[in-house]
């Protein structure tokens, strides 16, 4: 450890215990939002203060940490959080999904299937799925307590009435363990099926809103829908331009100022792994050159 002024993983032990108690309660009541005494962190709200506190509370010296932001290991947010824990906890870090024991994520679930003994920590901006329709916290708590979830379908109804289909593409509400309706954080609905019966433990931390919730391993997670408008994960009509993956979540990348663009895996580790294994997409070589050119 090269920053002796800080306690292991930044937070003091009392705070970590408080957070762990909240986490244990959250695991015991899948999908239920447990209030916790969220601390000030050395980063602004909205940059993952909730996720960071959860990670800090569960991290041990033997853990291997991976941090992704929109699927990518190399964005500012991901790098700074990864460095933060490398510095304050001295833990090993990785970008490889299989190697990680703790993965903190903003807005994605890795494409590589998770395994038991892994923990996925989500950064959550607004934990309350009913918030936009019911502004009163007292009322939404009561609705959760009494499992009154008609309002959640009102939102989906509005989508169909307006767009002809359920247009909610991210933060798509799910019902956990047939009891609590939960906001899966702004992950694309493409990732919703991955939450169902996942062997990994999933923890959600909302720093500003001071809530922690969880999906224990192998828990039933169902995306809400209507009988005549069933849930459909987003599908892309072309494979990844770099690794030719058929069923991964794609990002659009603008390649020039003439309307040129390409669609590539948002999960950079997955994409690179496939390319290393010899998979090649339609644009594998070309954009590399352009990128080099534009930055040169």
């Amino acid at each position, binding site marked *: 450890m090269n920053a002796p002024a800080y306690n292991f993983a930044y937070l003091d032990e009392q705070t970590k215990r408080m957070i762990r108690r909240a986490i244990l309660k959250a695991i015991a009541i899948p999908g239920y939002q447990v209030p916790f005494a969220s601390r000030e962190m050395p980063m602004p709200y909205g940059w993952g203060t909730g996720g960071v506190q959860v990670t800090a509370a569960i991290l041990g010296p033997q853990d291997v940490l991976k941090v992704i932001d929109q699927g990518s290991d190399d964005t500012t947010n991901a790098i700074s959080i990864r460095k933060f824990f490398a510095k304050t906890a001295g833990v090993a870090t990785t970008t490889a999904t299989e190697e990680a024991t703790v993965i903190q994520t903003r807005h994605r679930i890795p494409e590589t299937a998770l395994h038991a003994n892994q923990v996925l920590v989500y950064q959550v901006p607004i934990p309350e799925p009913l918030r936009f*329709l019911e502004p009163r916290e007292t009322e939404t708590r*009561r609705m959760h307590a*009494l499992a*009154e*979830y*008609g*309002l959640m*379908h*009102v939102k989906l*109804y*509005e989508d*169909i*009435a*307006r767009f002809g289909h359920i247009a909610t593409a991210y933060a798509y509400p799910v019902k956990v363990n047939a009891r609590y309706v939960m906001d899966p954080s702004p992950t694309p609905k493409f990732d919703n099926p991955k939450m169902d019966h996942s062997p990994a433990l999933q923890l959600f931390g909302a720093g500003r809103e001071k809530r922690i919730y969880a999906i224990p391993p192998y828990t039933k997670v169902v995306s809400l829908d*209507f*009988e*005549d*408008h069933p849930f459909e994960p987003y599908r892309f009509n072309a494979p990844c331009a770099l690794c030719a993956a058929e069923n991964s979540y794609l990002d659009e990348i603008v390649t020039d100022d003439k309307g040129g663009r390409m669609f590539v895996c948002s999960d950079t580790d997955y994409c690179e792994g496939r390319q290393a294994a010899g998979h090649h997409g339609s644009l594998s070589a070309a954009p590399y050159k352009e990128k080099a050119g534009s930055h040169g």
Partner: protein
Amino acid sequence: MADALENDQPLLVADSLSKSFGRIAACRDVSFSLYSGEVLAIVGESGSGKSTLLQLLSGQLAASGGHVSYRMRDGVTRDLATLGEAERRFLFRTDWGFVHQDPAQGLRMAVSAGANVGERLMAVGWNHYGRIRDTASDWLTRVEIDTARIDDAPRTYSGGMRQRLQIARNLVTEPRLVFMDEPTGGLDVSVQARLLDLLRSLVAELNLAVIIVTHDLAVARLLSHRVMVMKGGRVIETGLTDQVLDDPREPYTQLLVSSILPA
């Protein structure tokens, strides 16, 4: 015959209801029975305790004394105070309705009319978009709202339309009892007449029991079978609406009746 037997049992019974706020008694010793299909008007001036009484009857306010009991859909009569919150809220969105004076209190103003009507159905587990929408549009027709407006939010509606939408939202689960708090309060006279007329026919058609709070005796005359006149938290006179209005006995009732401006 089954109907007649059922009718012999009151739907709701208030027994010596009282409510005080500190030293102020807002409601004193109110008792009555309400039967299916019966419309009861509670009249009186502002501050007479009629709105407090409505809140006590609908279980939104705990009484300081007395009981309200209600015959549930399964035929069992229950004391409202013994219902759990979940049961009470379930009652509120299935077998009861509540029409507020201000439609913004009873509607979701930013959500489409169709979803406003459909919400109660979704709350009781309807899970088929097409059927929810068909039922909502059927109800819009019944309250005389053009179904072309089904996807518009009520904030784009006129006052009268909002109030009619609020009624549709309440009636979609076919409640047996509807509470109304000055439902025509903020409306123009012509809009009021249309709403009253609509309410009158819906009440008869659906055999609704209604408890309506109003300070407008004309509303009471048009809609209700019975009236209770309140003053200072007490019921001072009660009876058939036309009896009380045509043959008022209490000084205060006579004053109320004589204060109506001739049309």
